[in-house]
């Protein structure tokens, strides 16, 4: 990188003093910010710690923040320092003639590459250890919980309300959801019309509800409390009103609630189709006749 004659005003010493000042300011600010993020704000970071998965995500956000904030602060420090120091002034002269610097460029490549590769590796670790981190893993999940699943809840999304079926309680279907604490839960999320998305915010669970697909997500409840269930994939006119609330209760309370609901809904459970992992709209006979009756199996959808 040949540079023509450097005019007298841009000496190397002055360059080094700029660098020292920038690094100095940056280090101080970065340490303070990181301390605040990790210790003060860290425990209160969303999505909270109601399940293993939510706790994993919270830890993941903390680690990324502790690494990302210094990068943010470095560019702010450098930027604001430059704006303050390297001004053109009245007679508007030209700046320091340099077209590149092998050392700084190489340092930049190496630092950004290591940061990024670490984050990719760490993200994979945080994905695998808490059994898929609460995200939908499709019909045959790869990262399953270490302890066996105790409760299976089928989440049925339809335009425009979530309903829940409980295979371990006679396949009953309810519009409300309660979950027992300290239990490894498997959510089988599916849809009977368009794509929705089951997002139990405080549980740190999110899985798309696709028609004809069983999308499995895991969560291990750790704390009591109320959680919000929202539809997180645009599904039509009432998408914004497609939400309900669930509670994590004690195991006995849950068992009483479930058996009482099973008795109460017994007459409707008889009318429901047999419990299955997916339900195809065109087989239930209800539909808009969109596909002409030439539909090979079942009436028009």
């Amino acid at each position, binding site marked *: 990188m040949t540079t023509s004659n450097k005019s007298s005003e841009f000496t190397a010493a002055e360059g080094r003093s700029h660098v020292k000042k920038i690094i100095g300011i940056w280090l101080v600010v970065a340490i303070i910010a990181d301390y605040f993020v990790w210790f003060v704000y860290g425990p209160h970071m969303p999505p909270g710690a109601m399940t293993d998965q939510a706790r994993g995500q919270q830890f993941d956000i903390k680690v990324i923040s502790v690494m990302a904030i210094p990068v943010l602060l470095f560019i702010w420090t450098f930027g604001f320092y430059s704006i303050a120091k390297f001004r053109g002034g009245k007679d508007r002269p030209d700046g320091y003639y340099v077209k590149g610097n092998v050392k700084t460029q190489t340092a930049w490549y190496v630092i950004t590459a290591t940061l990024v590769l670490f984050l990719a590796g760490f993200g994979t670790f945080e994905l695998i250890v808490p059994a898929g981190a609460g995200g939908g893993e499709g019909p045959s999940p790869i990262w399953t919980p270490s302890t066996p699943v105790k409760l299976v809840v089928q989440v049925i999304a339809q335009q425009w309300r979530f309903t829940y079926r409980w295979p371990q309680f006679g396949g009953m279907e309810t519009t409300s959801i309660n979950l027992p604490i300290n239990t490894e839960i498997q959510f089988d999320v599916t849809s009977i019309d368009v794509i929705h998305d089951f997002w139990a915010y405080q549980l740190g669970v999110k899985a798309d509800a696709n028609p004809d697909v069983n999308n499995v997500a895991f969560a291990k409840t750790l704390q009591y409390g109320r959680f919000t269930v929202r539809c997180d994939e645009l599904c039509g006119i009432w998408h914004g009103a497609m939400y309900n609330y669930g509670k994590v209760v004690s195991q006995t309370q849950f068992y009483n609630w479930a058996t009482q609901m099973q008795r109460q809904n017994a007459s409707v459970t008889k009318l429901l189709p047999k419990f299955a992992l997916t339900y195809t709209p065109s087989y239930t006979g209800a*539909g808009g006749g969109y596909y002409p009756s030439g539909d090979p199996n079942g009436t028009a959808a």
Partner: protein
Amino acid sequence: MSKGARAGAVLVSFAVGIALILYGIFGYLRSSPAVVSAVPSASQPNSVNLIMQVDGAVGVGPHPNWVGYWVQDASGVWHQTTLVKVPVNTNVHVTVYEYDSGGALRNAVWSQVAGVQGGTVTLNGTSLRVINPSLTTGNGIAHTIVVPGLGIQVPLYGVGASAKNFCATGPCNTSEAHTVTKFSFFSGNQTHKYRWQCFVPCGLGYLNGNGGPMTTLGYMGGFIEVVGK
């Protein structure tokens, strides 16, 4: 063009632009179906009557052959809408004349009655807790009224499509084949705009039956707004 003329042209074009925008907003985007308010009679201050009918084809408006609800206002006039206002802390007695033919439910859980006083609806005189879609007399559930915010689930049983004087296009009158469903619910003690919808996939000609009337305000979904007294 002189500077003055150019200035005039710019101002005029801005004015035209703003007028177009305002027309677009208030003349079109803000347009909505009629709103019917249920008003308590003098004698019974905290109970109101709500009379609705459901037709296989509303017969009016931009989509005459869509299914849709009508609501009768206090003075007996029928409005093709699904936007209703009821006062707070009031018992709402709803009567629904169902003129449309029924069919199977995509999710049979909606055949269960819930959230109404006494837990039952009276269908043609008999009170029921669950309406079985394959009852022998009619041909299944035609529509439902479900208000998730108030926990209300009311299936409406349909008439046979081949019934003698089947009402082809709305507004229908009680001389035509229909079923009557009555239920009542308490409007709660807080004002809120509750959305309600039909869960039978009755959008004929649309995929899964969930398009058209199901996704347009004023046909198969709307608001029950609980307003202050």
